[in-house]
């Protein structure tokens, strides 16, 4: 059997052999079938549905929709509403990545140094908690804390600055609030991923380093960090794919027309244009633009990672 891996037997890919193999594995295909049906209907049909971005979609009689080529993509970049939205998206997602990315790595390294198991477990429990709570709930808490009159944070801020501020309607403070609340909610989940990677490191490496006289700091720099580098790179690749995903749920729950100027992102824009205003073709074009850019970005970063370091997600 092992030899067949290197040297495929004669006629390995002839239709007769393929058919024989498929018959042998018919029960595996049986297990696979519902999954395939699911992916075709719920994942590939919407992708196929993207064709309406090249049409003037008529929602009352879809079959009468006419092909219009790139019209809606041209509209996207000539209307004065989309480009600011694109800039907001990149700005918010970029800041979230830049500020949110290092924290989990640092926290995981520090958490690894906690030796008391009970303390470690308790700290982990609290750290991950916000990740499992929906943005509806988190937004409820954020709105409570930032309420212009009764909010606990508002009152502290007004004592510190001497003037009352409403963070939720302030175009300068809204984006920092988004980033802080996002880091708050997701930092623990990021930590767990690196922490899992760290706990997979062979303890003998540390023992050997300790015998050689390497202190904790040196062990961290020369063993831990290099060992979790592949995980860091994979996370970075996945996060770049999200660069146009500035966080629909969060922003949708917290924004108001007063802050659209700084907080409107592609997904919220698509929602308002598509679902609320029923401009289906145009909003699909906006969404498709986002999907394509994200796809190209992931592939590019993955390729760079592969070339330079042999770390990639595929």
């Amino acid at each position, binding site marked *: 059997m092992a030899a067949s891996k290197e040297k495929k037997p004669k006629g390995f890919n002839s239709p007769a052999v393929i058919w024989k193999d498929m018959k042998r594995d018919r029960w595996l295909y049986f297990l696979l079938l519902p*999954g395939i049906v699911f992916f075709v209907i719920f994942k590939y*049909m919407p992708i196929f549905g993207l064709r309406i971005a090249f049409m003037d979609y008529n929602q009352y009689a879809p079959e009468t929709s006419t092909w219009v080529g790139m019209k809606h993509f041209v509209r996207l970049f000539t209307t004065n509403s989309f480009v600011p939205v694109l800039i907001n998206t990149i700005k918010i997602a970029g800041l979230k990545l830049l500020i949110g990315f290092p924290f989990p790595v640092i926290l995981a390294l520090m958490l690894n140094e906690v030796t008391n198991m009970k303390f470690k477990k308790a700290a982990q429990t609290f750290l991950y908690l916000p990740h499992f709570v929906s943005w*509806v709930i988190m937004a409820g808490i954020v709105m409570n804390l930032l309420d212009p009159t009764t909010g606990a944070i508002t009152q502290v801020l007004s004592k510190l600055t001497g003037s009352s501020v409403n963070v939720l309607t302030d175009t300068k403070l809204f984006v920092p609030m988004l980033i802080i609340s996002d880091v708050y909610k997701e930092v623990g989940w990021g930590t767990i991923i690196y922490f899992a990677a760290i706990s997979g490191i062979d303890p003998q490496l540390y023992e050997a380093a300790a015998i050689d006289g390497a202190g904790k700091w040196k062990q961290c720099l020369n063993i831990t960090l290099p060992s979790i580098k592949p995980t860091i790179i994979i996370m970075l690749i996945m996060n770049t794919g999200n660069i146009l995903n500035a966080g629909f749920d969060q922003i949708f729950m917290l924004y108001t027309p007063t802050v659209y100027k700084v907080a409107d992102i592609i997904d919220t824009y698509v*929602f308002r244009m598509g*679902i609320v205003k029923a401009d289906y073709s145009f909003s699909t074009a906006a*969404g498709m633009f986002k999907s394509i850019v*994200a796809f190209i970005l992931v592939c590019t970063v993955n390729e760079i990672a592969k070339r330079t370091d042999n770390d990639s997600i595929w």
Partner: protein
Amino acid sequence: MAAKNKTAGTAIKKSTPEKVFTIFNYAFFTLISIIMIIPFWHVLMMSLSDVNETMKGGIFLYVKGFNVDTYSQVFKNPMIWTGFATAIGVTLIGTLGGTLLTAMMAYALSKPRLRFGKVLMVLVLFTMLFYGGTVPSYLLMKNLRLIDNRWALILPGLISAYNVIVMRSFFSSISDSFEESAKLDGANDVTIFFRIIIPLSKASIATIVLFNAVMYWNDYFSTVLYINSTDKWALQAVLRNMLTNTQQAMQQAGVNVRASSNVTAETIKAGSVVVATVPILIIYPFLQKYFVKGVMIGGVKG
């Protein structure tokens, strides 16, 4: 110092900076834990406090004037109950069905001998990188006549590419010997999957159950997209409505939100947040032990 180290045997000598770091580290994580829990605690305490105190605002580290009027009013809203019912039904069906379908698919794809398995895996992976988008998904549901039907909250989320990858890499790590000996006894792949593989995979299945359950329970957007009738809304949408349209939402339930009835919009909001958070807090400790395991399996390259 030296004597101490000798008796400790293998203990590694700790320098003073390291000791300082250790103390700092413990203090740091204590502080982080407090920061993580305090907003939830504050909202809970506020929801149980007297209206006059809540109107003053500020931080609630303890109950100021204990009463449960907020909760007796929140629960008067029938939408809270229908929201819970929908969310529980959707979460149960979606989680169990989704996990089963994910596991079945992942098991078949974990067999290197499966013809077209690699191509199918690439097609699954592709859906993780490329998404049809909100509007095409909405139009699909419309064509399937699922608008305003609770199945619209369940079906689109059943299987995710990520979960398939996680399960597949777990199944790949199970030794082939189980399968081979069962095959000698004349079992087919379906029997092997249900009788042998599933019992062997409890931990990773629990992880997928957790991921799915959290996803379904927290899902808000599907309701907004697909459901019109308020009595079919899932809990998150009901909660959202109570947070943004507090007065109207409660008025429909026959509750006048004003200080004289001992509730304000603020306490109703705080109470609703607590009501929606508690179910998560209750099951959270039981499922927590599976997080690390699941993440570690997921960390393996797909």
